[in-house]
């Protein structure tokens, strides 16, 4: 069996599972985000009165944080009252993006199953955990019963070997994968990332791969945990846990491989995540807004490379740069290391941790005709505001260099260090 199958089998309390099986499996962490006031309605609708395992349920407020409208304020008010009443975890507007704060809080460890009203729950694969996005009904059911049904997914292996050039980041790798394999390659399936490039990546970089697995259609993702994971979990997770492993005879549904030695910065052009080109091949047009942040591009290493590129420089007078650290912990660390100062002095607008304008809720919504280059994860039409705006996905380094020039720019010439990222 694959490690993912072993996790499903264990949580379903059965000996073996295989792809296509439907199982009822225990959920270790059930997460609702602030967009889903509807979960409360479904909870009631399903006859829920009590939460089976309150310690396994968390509400996170990162999208409409702080509330931009009366309706969202009212939704959050109801959800807070629900959280207080039932004694579940509440990560309020002062914490950060959903999965980032849950990982930092030690609520996720290898071998667990998490569901969330957040499609980017696939990010948890970086910790060797199964994370899946669901809707309000599943979420409410899981709060009541502590388990839901799953279809055990086929598993695809994507092997990534090689060493990244300076200024080329995990984001470029996953965009390249998207461009090659397309956004429906892994529908209903799980993705495991392997290979030397993945092993050499920081945990934050691996999170980028797993985060965007959902853009390939995946149900969940997985990277075999190593020392980097154990170090991160360190003092955050005090309980013991077992790291599942894949049997040597396991047969993947599909296998793909990518060599990244010669990879150059990638860009996903409007309006699809798999509409990917080498940065240098994209026609240069004026960029109105740049965004560094969110669950994809707002971690410390993202802010570090942006600060390195922008320190002592000024952003283009006709371009805005919005920087949103993924969590309070990252904000504090970036402040301590001087990154925030460097970014603000260069002309960045630094906001509170959260999802920012990524899905068009507030904090940098786009007008018709505007162009935005973003380190976030989706460039769908209308994602960040007007359907007539254009979104280009790129790495945080590319976004930072672009903010300086006001047109899409390769970050290579702007890095002071020549270390490989």
């Amino acid at each position, binding site marked *: 069996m694959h490690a993912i199958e072993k996790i499903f089998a264990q949580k379903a309390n059965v000996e073996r599972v295989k792809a296509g099986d439907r199982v009822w499996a225990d959920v270790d962490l059930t997460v609702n985000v602030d967009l889903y006031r509807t979960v409360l309605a479904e909870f009631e609708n399903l006859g829920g009165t009590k939460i089976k395992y309150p310690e396994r349920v968390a509400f996170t407020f990162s999208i409409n944080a702080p509330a931009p409208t009366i309706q969202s304020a009212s939704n959050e008010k109801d959800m807070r009252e629900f959280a207080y009443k039932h004694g579940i975890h509440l990560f309020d507007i002062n914490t950060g993006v959903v999965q980032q704060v849950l990982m930092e809080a030690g609520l996720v460890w290898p071998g667990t199953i998490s569901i969330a009203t957040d499609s980017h729950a696939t990010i948890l694969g970086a910790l060797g955990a199964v994370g899946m*996005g669901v*809707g309000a009904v599943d979420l409410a*059911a899981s709060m009541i019963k502590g388990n839901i049904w799953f279809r055990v997914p086929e598993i695809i292996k994507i092997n990534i070997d090689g060493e990244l050039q300076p200024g080329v980041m995990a984001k470029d790798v996953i965009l390249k994968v998207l461009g090659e394999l397309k956004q429906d390659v892994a529908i209903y399936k799980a993705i495991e990332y392997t290979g030397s490039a993945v092993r050499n990546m920081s945990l934050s970089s691996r999170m980028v791969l797993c985060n965007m697995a959902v853009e390939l259609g995946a149900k969940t993702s997985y990277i075999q945990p190593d020392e980097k994971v154990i170090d991160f979990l360190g003092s955050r997770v005090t309980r013991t846990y077992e790291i599942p492993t894949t049997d040597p005879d396991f047969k993947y549904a599909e296998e793909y491989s990518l060599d990244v030695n010669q990879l150059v910065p990638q860009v996903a052009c409007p309006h699809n995540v798999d509409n990917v080109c080498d940065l240098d091949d994209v026609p240069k047009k004026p960029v109105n807004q740049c965004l560094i942040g969110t669950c994809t591009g707002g971690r410390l290493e993202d802010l570090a490379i942006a600060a390195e590129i922008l320190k002592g420089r000024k952003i283009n007078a006709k371009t805005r740069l919005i920087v949103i650290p993924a969590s309070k912990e990252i904000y504090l660390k970036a402040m301590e290391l001087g990154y925030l100062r460097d970014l603000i002095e260069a002309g960045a607008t630094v906001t509170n941790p959260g999802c920012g304008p990524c899905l068009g809720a507030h904090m940098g919504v786009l007008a018709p005709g505007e162009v935005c280059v973003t380190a976030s994860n989706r460039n769908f039409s209308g994602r960040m505001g007007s359907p007539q705006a254009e979104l280009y996905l790129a790495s945080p380094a590319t976004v930072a260099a672009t903010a300086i020039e006001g047109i899409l720019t390769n970050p290579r010439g702007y890095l002071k260090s020549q270390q490989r990222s």
Partner: protein
Amino acid sequence: MDMVITGKVLVYDDNIDTDIICPGRFLELNESKDIANVAMSGIDSNFPEKAKTHSIIIAGKNFGCGSSRDHAVRALKYSGLKAVIAQSFGRIFYRNALNLGLLVIISKDARNIFNDGESGKIDLTKGKITNMDKIITVDSDVISEEEFKVYEQGGMIQIYKQN
């Protein structure tokens, strides 16, 4: 639920994502009718009006890719749609549809035989989709008995309720 569903179709391309079906700025809405009012507003602001006379969506691959928002399913269901046929579906959308009882059917070929406004017929048990205007029939995946029961009861939500 009927084993045979008929209605006029609306045809869409590949990768109709959840930001098209229900843009992020509307996710604060809670009432089904309010959500239905913004259905497909990322691509077609007249959709709610069209949905009064058209009851089947036929799309290309990866329909509903993107977010976990079940607002996307609600938007379509409560605008009166009977079914969505696509070459493939975003995983979470598919799951949400099953949960909320919006009929979703996978067919590789249906997309190729329909134009907007034509009449379609879906035979669930036989796995056949017919363009009634042109009298062309193509295959679809057959809905399993298990899934049919789920739909018949109004989605997984009803089954959860009974448990």
